[in-house]
């Protein structure tokens, strides 16, 4: 501030002009990204909102129906069932991977950074690299009547439990959920392990000298220290649960009946098989709002702790 006050008026004007020029150049750099984002995210989002107020089969004339599509999404039991299923999946996509990751990461916290740990990390990361659609295929074979799951159960003397897991109304949804647990547990473990590595080790030394056990150490040091990582993982895995598509598409197609139907698959079917573009679009908007409603509080909670 003092510099501008002492400099003469023409120099100030010149500086302002230069700043304006630099600002204009900076805006030019933003243009390509804004065009791509605007054309293929914002514009479709806007047309999606527009479609959601119409009854349209994709070819003929569209008729304005107001909020009727939204009423259907929120009242029709089939559509609500899909939303309910996706909430059940959160248990498998979020609770199991984050929970397992936490226990595992705290237990191997002191493990030497040698070959065993590196090799384990590599293996645990494999499910992140293969397409989810391939995971769906691999697991449908695991769960088949003649598949490995039933074979292992029989070997353990639990033969009475065997069944075609994905074709059974009672087990299909949890079975699909466990595919998600398989995909995400490694990521959670490795990320939490990295997070624990950043916690000051003297804290652990101190509390152990204090005579604390595993549980007290976990709740007073590990858990608070991992707040940021946990917020990230919960956000990531909740979004993964609500927007599952690939795994379901290649394993159960939503069946048996509607047992594993999820919003993503339903949007696909209503929009392209039943050609009810308005209803499918309304469902898409509801899905987006649901994700926002779940994710924003998580972000806010993790920030409150920072202050």
């Amino acid at each position: 501030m003092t510099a501008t006050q002492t400099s003469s008026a023409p120099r100030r004007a010149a500086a302002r002009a230069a700043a304006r020029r630099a600002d204009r150049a900076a805006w030019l750099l933003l243009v390509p990204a804004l065009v791509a984002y605007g054309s293929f995210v914002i514009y479709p989002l806007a047309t999606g909102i527009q479609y959601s107020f119409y009854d349209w089969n994709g070819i003929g004339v569209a008729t304005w129906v107001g909020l009727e599509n939204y009423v259907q999404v929120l009242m029709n039991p089939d559509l609500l069932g899909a939303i309910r299923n996706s909430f059940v999946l959160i248990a498998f996509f979020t609770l199991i991977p984050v929970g397992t990751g936490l226990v595992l990461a705290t237990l191997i916290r002191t493990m030497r950074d040698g070959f065993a740990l590196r090799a384990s990390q590599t293996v645990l990361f494999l499910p992140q690299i293969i397409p989810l659609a391939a995971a769906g295929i691999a697991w449908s074979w695991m769960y088949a009547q003649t598949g490995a799951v039933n074979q292992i159960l029989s070997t353990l003397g639990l033969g009475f439990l065997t069944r075609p897991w994905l074709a059974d109304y009672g087990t299909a949804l949890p079975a699909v959920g466990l595919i998600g647990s398989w995909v995400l547990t490694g990521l959670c473990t490795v990320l939490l392990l990295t997070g624990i590595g950043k916690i000051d080790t003297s804290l652990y030394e101190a509390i152990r000298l204090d005579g604390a056990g595993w549980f007290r150490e976990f709740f007073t040091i590990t858990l608070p220290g991992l707040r940021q990582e946990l917020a990230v993982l919960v956000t990531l895995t909740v979004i993964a649960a609500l927007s599952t598509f690939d795994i379901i598409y290649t394993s159960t197609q939503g069946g048996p009946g509607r047992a594993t139907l999820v919003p993503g698959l339903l949007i696909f079917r209503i929009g392209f098989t039943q050609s009810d573009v308005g209803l499918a679009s309304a469902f898409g908007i509801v899905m987006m709002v649901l994700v926002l409603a779940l994710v924003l509080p998580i972000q806010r909670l993790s920030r409150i702790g920072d202050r």
Partner: protein
Amino acid sequence: MITSRTEVVLGRLLLLVAVVLTLIPLVNMLSAALQPADRNPIGLSWPTDPQWINFVTAFEVGNVWRLMGSSAFIVICVVPVALIIATLAGYALGGLQVRGGRIILMVFVLGLTIPFESLIIPLYYQAQALGTLNTQWAVIFPLIGLFMPFSVFWMRAHFVNVPRELSEAARVDGATLWQEFFRIQLPLALPSLSALTILLFIWTWNQFLLPVVLIADPLDRTVAGALTFFQGQYYLSIPLLNAGALIIIVPAITVFLIFQRQFIRALLQGAVKG
């Protein structure tokens, strides 16, 4: 370090269980793929006479060369363009601190929470209007746009941490905006750029929803999108289906094993920053 013996043993045991559980479905795919193609295999059992020929059959029946070519084309069009325009935008937002940049950043960040499924219906009719439907461009254009929120956010996070003194020094030396960008900023951004390249590569290669909806001919899709075609093609033969799926997975896994340190770092950073 003070830790009890039980914890150490329990931890290693659990880690071993997790590793084995992660590997079983993959090993199970391989063991099924090596069974005789005309029989239904049973569970996890190593074949007495491994049928490696199944991979050759699956490769031919699945038109894998064409599929790999199609995937590679989509990756080559999406990744470099997304990298370049996200770097420019990230520099404007993070390095130059353009006026109104906070609002622009917010608009991009909100895009991180939009599920692809919410946009897929309008994207279909948009592709129809643009005349790109059922061509690879129907996937290429939207993917570039859909990758912007994360990519811009990521590159901004890099540029915002570059010390201001660097660019001030360059300006004092008389460097233009472009010279400063190419000679000073870009070389410094290389680690962030390579991590982003890895992430965008996996996300494009494994993209499923967009190709399945927007490209009718499975052979013009990404390899992941073509897996549905494999399911149709080999639905009578579990060994061939598994062989086909493995062929598709192997290139990604090979790249991963070569660059695994960079991969893991990129994915972890990607998770934390995203």
